[in-house]
């Protein structure tokens, strides 16, 4: 069952007088529960595509549908609500709010969702246990390693039971062992919770873990392979 449909989407960035076409009439679908890697070199358009899917940005041409809903028709607040309730994000770096502890970073998103305190506490404790960071609950991001920070980010992305998790280069700043553990954890969540994971990456390990590999180059899809 299709959760995301990207229909002939183009995106052009302007820097001074120079224009750069980041995406050029890209079309593709993502099904519920997929574990997909968008691969390609820098400038290939994978992060741009992820941003459009996550309603962080709007296409110049074409349309993106999330669960049959055209994202171009949503206003700023509606897009914020969509991100809050249905999409989880994991970014490459600067993923956590530095003044909040690990537990508070996870709690924050539940608070935005207006989840009551009792349920929030239970969910935060459960997810911290799931990502193996119960003992780091009270630590702030600067007291956590890069891998631990990314695990908190994954916990935050998944704690709201989103339909889709978008991860932009989640392993880029991690060593291979930590990166592998993180991917195993996300793969486990994908399998147990049926959450769709879409990665933008040029890390071969992420591509190995993915069930489907979409390769981009110069803003176009060059291959789309299911394993």
């Amino acid at each position, binding site marked *: 069952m299709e959760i995301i449909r990207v229909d002939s989407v183009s995106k052009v960035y302007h820097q001074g007088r120079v224009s750069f076409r980041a995406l050029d009439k890209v079309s593709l679908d993502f099904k519920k529960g997929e574990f997909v890697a968008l691969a390609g070199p820098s400038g290939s358009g994978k992060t741009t595509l992820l941003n459009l899917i996550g309603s962080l940005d709007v296409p110049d041409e074409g349309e993106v549908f999330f669960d049959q809903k055209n994202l171009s028709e949503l206003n700023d607040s509606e897009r914020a609500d969509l991100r809050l309730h249905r999409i989880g994000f994991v970014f490459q770096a600067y993923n956590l709010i530095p003044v*909040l502890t690990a537990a508070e970073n996870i709690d924050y998103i539940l608070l935005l969702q207006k989840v009551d305190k009792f349920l929030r506490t239970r969910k935060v404790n459960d997810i911290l246990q799931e990502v193996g960071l119960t003992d780091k609950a009270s630590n702030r991001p600067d007291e956590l390693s890069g891998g631990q920070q990314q695990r908190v980010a994954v916990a935050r992305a998944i704690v709201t039971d989103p339909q889709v998790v978008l991860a932009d280069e989640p392993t880029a700043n991690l060593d291979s062992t930590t990166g592998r553990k993180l991917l195993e954890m996300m793969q486990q969540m994908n399998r147990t919770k049926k959450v769709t994971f879409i990665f933008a990456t040029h890390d071969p390990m992420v591509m190995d873990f993915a069930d489907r590999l979409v390769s981009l180059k110069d803003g176009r899809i060059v291959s789309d392979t299911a394993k």
Partner: protein
Amino acid sequence: MRFFDLLSVQISWRNLWRNPRRTTIILTAIVVGIISMIVLSAFGRGMMEGMVKNSIDNLVGHIKIQNPQYRIDPAIDNRIDQAEKIAAQIGELLPDDVQLATRLRLDGVLSTSREHTGVMIVGIDPAAEKGVSFIGRPLYQGTPLQPEDARGLLIGQGLLERLGLEIGKKVVVLSQDASGEGRSKAFRIRGSYRAEMRDTEKRYIFINLKSFQDMLAAPGSATEISISLRNANAYQTGTVEDYVDRINERLDGLGLEATGWRQLLPAIAAYIDMFDVYMLIWFVVVFVAMGFGLANTVLMAVYERMREFGLQRALGLRSSGIIKNVMIEVLFLLLIGMALADLCSFFLVKVVFRSGIDLGSFGAGIEMWGISRIVYPVLSLSDIVMANGVVVLLGLLVGLYPALHAARFTPIETMRHL
């Protein structure tokens, strides 16, 4: 989401202390600004209350009953006949703690063996002046006037020194009676007084009322009945005017008129009326200087955290949520600044300046305005509320600028801003 959810408050509070030096600097600016507002207003109010008290003490009183013509031509012709009887009738209208003093005040000449000088001769009932005017206070030297002392005279220390007189010396007082004839009488100096203003010391001499009446062959006459209210806030509008109306109803047909001190001292009354406006203008001026610093500091903090705002927006926080978080931060700054400033102001006014601020070095300049040489700052709740109100309202208004700025960051813009 509720406006003050705990996590938003925690985020704002912790963000405030991410750069303690910057926060301390802007807090210092806020604290100094508010202290200057409160302490200067306390000083101004103290000066104003001193001016009012001095003026009222200076034989004005809160209400004065006179023949209306006396104010135009202060001569014996424009006197109050049967003054004691009228004072007694008026006293029945007023509460028990109100004091009345009947006086006969006329221009005259004081002669010594070497010199003559123009003075204001005031016939008083010494007992009635206690707590009503400065002459009721202890003397600088000598002994007070006794009620039956027909030859006793009190003189200002300034005049005593100028004329080279001493206590116990004899002087002659000259004034005009109702027929225009000059009348004189010899008196002996019993004591000298000090007044807040040197000019008063050089101008007024005091003798017994009855003695003055006898000298002018005007028994029972006076030129004024001065009424002193015990209410500490009597200088404010309302109370005095109510009494004036009641007294004037009773005086109807007698050719006399009661006047409140605001009409007797219009310049001071106008100054008081304008004081709050002056203070508000001063508060706004101080705030404008402070406001730029506040806006700049918060803007710097916002730019430093662009990436975080972008992250929060990406996670689903609406732009209104960003505005809220920044505004909570601004509110914290203002509240901490206000609390510290209020405490410091209280300490300064109640402890450091408790014994008053000596303006003696300004000498005659301040006396000309009727300002006391020592000013006791007066903390007024309304000034504190106004200073804090100006800071919090304008502070939040100024804080809106960086907050709106932060809310305009889009997640994509900020994510790229590494």
